[in-house]
Every structure is written in structure tokens, then in C-alpha cells.
């Protein structure tokens, strides 16, 4: 067992010191019947938009507005994201996947420290479940339908599983009717689910 806090190995999972202490508390309190993990998850899920800086929405809004930035983002997302002043941890590479009418991207892994929450916000609770992971690989269209997303039959769906070194950011399609919008207004359309590919960006009608 590794006791060195600076030990870093990409073969196995890692939890920070605070994460270890939080998990310790949660398992003890659950075993003693003081907390119900499902109820905790349900509450935490309501803070989807209240955790972390959620820089991803601004990155997507910039890519929608600025063709030069979009090209840089698709070429090297780590650099393009850093350009906006958002720095990931060292050695973390982010790859941007752009959704188009022909191809829809979905990201599946996100169980451990690999989930880029500073970019995306809080991971959805259901993302951690094994049934979701296996189903999204076997039947991505069905999973999307469960989320209320019906894609044209001609749209190819690609599923991406993060590796130890690569995290993905899905760039959703820009909704129609947003011509001339400021980046700030556009960013409000970019949900977490649209950046992991289990949803689409909000439409202007949805935020009106």
C-alpha cells in the first residue's frame, strides 16, 4: 500500500487526502445508519450547476463564436482551454469532440479522479453506475432516448471511454436561433449533459 502522498501512478485509481476522509466518513455513517447514500446523492445531484467553475460552458461558447478558437480547440483542447486561463492538473490532456449532424459523441468513464469537474461541473450520479456504463456501450441510442434525446437515424453515435491521461469534452451543436448572441448568453445554453454527450445544448426557447 502506498503511503506517499506524492506517489503518482497512472495504472490505478487515486483519491486525494480530503476525498479519502470524506469517503471514510460516508462509509462509517452509512454502516451505522446515520445517512442514506442514495438520499445524499439525490441532494448532491441538485447542485449540478453549483460545483466548480464549470469552465467548459465558456470554452464551448467561445468555440461557437470564434472560428479560429474552434480550430485551435479541436486541434489541441488542452492548449485552447489554457488559453482562457483554465489550467488542468499537470499531465492532463483534454480532447474536444465536436458534435455534428452526422456524428454525436458520448463520454462514458468518469468514475474516479479522471472526471474533469473544473471543466464540466459535478458528475451525474448515474454516471458512476455499472449498468449505465455497459448499456451506453451496447445501446447508446437507447440510453440517449432515456434522456429524452432522439437523434436522426442517420447520425452516427460514437462512445468514448476516458483513459488515465485523456479526458473528453464534447462540443455540442450550437442551437438554431442564437445568431449574434454574446458568449455569455451562449454559455448559459451549455449544460453539463451536453458536454458529456447525454444531452443537447438548451434552445433559446428553453431559457426564455
Amino acid at each position: 500500500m502506498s503511503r506517499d502522498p506524492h506517489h503518482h501512478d497512472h495504472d490505478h485509481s487515486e483519491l486525494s487526502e480530503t476525498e479519502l476522509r470524506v469517503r471514510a466518513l460516508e462509509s462509517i455513517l452509512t454502516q451505522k445508519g446515520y445517512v442514506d447514500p442514495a438520499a445524499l446523492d439525490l441532494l448532491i445531484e441538485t447542485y449540478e450547476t453549483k460545483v466548480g467553475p464549470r469552465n467548459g460552458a465558456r470554452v464551448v461558447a467561445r468555440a461557437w463564436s470564434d472560428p479560429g478558437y474552434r480550430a485551435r480547440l479541436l486541434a489541441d483542447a488542452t492548449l485552447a482551454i489554457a488559453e482562457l486561463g483554465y489550467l488542468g492538473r499537470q499531465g492532463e490532456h483534454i480532447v474536444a469532440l465536436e458534435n455534428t449532424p452526422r456524428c454525436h459523441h458520448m463520454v462514458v468513464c468518469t468514475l474516479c479522479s479522471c472526471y474533469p469537474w473544473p471543466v464540466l461541473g459535478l458528475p451525474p450520479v448515474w454516471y458512476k453506475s455499472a449498468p449505465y456504463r455497459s448499456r451506453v456501450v451496447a445501446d447508446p441510442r437507447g440510453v440517449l432516448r432515456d434522456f429524452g434525446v432522439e437523434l436522426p437515424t442517420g447520425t452516427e453515435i460514437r462512445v468514448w471511454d476516458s483513459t488515465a491521461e485523456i479526458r473528453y469534452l464534447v462540443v455540442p451543436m450550437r442551437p438554431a436561433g442564437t445568431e449574434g448572441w454574446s458568449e455569455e448568453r451562449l454559455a448559459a445554453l451549455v449544460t453539463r449533459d451536453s458536454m458529456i454527450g447525454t444531452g443537447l445544448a438548451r434552445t433559446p426557447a428553453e431559457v426564455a
Partner: protein
Amino acid sequence: MTLDPAAARRAADALPGLPRDAEGPVFGAPWEAQAFAMTLALHARGLFTWGEWAAMLADEIKRAQAAGDPDTGETYYRHWLAALERMVAVKGVADSGTLARYRDAWDHAADRTPHGRPIVLAPEDFD
């Protein structure tokens, strides 16, 4: 008493200094939301009042400041977590030895779990 955003908002109202916006608490990282949710659950069960909690948290912050904490607000939930650990010890739920044993077990579980798999605690993690 249920665990919901309304209860969270009442907690935020009862605890000045808690990072929040108009709707309720905001968090810098997922673990902060977890620590907050557990505290809310324990409060809902009547383990402590917000008055007791505020005193424990203030004491933790005072200790940290004495130890050189810059107190910029960035470390608020670190103090929160330390206060929660002390609270469960004071209330006889789990002493610091038990907390340390579980912390080490989770460390072991993370170590033996390949990247990308869910980290789950197993009995052998306590060996």
C-alpha cells in the same frame, strides 16, 4: 425533515460565512458538496443543532488560523471537514481511530483499483 435544497438553504441561512449564492450553497469541488450533504443529514437526524455546529466550525477555523491558515475562504470546507470529523467523535458516532482506519482502507481500495473502475471498499482493504 427531508434532505432537500430547501433544508440546504435554511442551513446556509443559519451559517454565515458559508459559500453561497442567492439560491443556496455553492461548492469548489465535488467532495465539498458531499461533506455538506452528510452534515445536513446528521443535522436532520438531530445529532446536533446549527448552533452547536457553528461553534465547532468556528473552533476549527480558530485552530487553523493559529496554525497559519491564510483564511481566504478557499479553505472553508477543509475546516468544515475537520469539524465534521470532530463532531462525529464528540457525539460518539466514530472516534478518530475508526476514521483513520477507514481512511486507510479507502486508500488501499484506490490503490488496487485499475483506473476507470469504480472504487469499492472490500473487507481485505482493512487488513
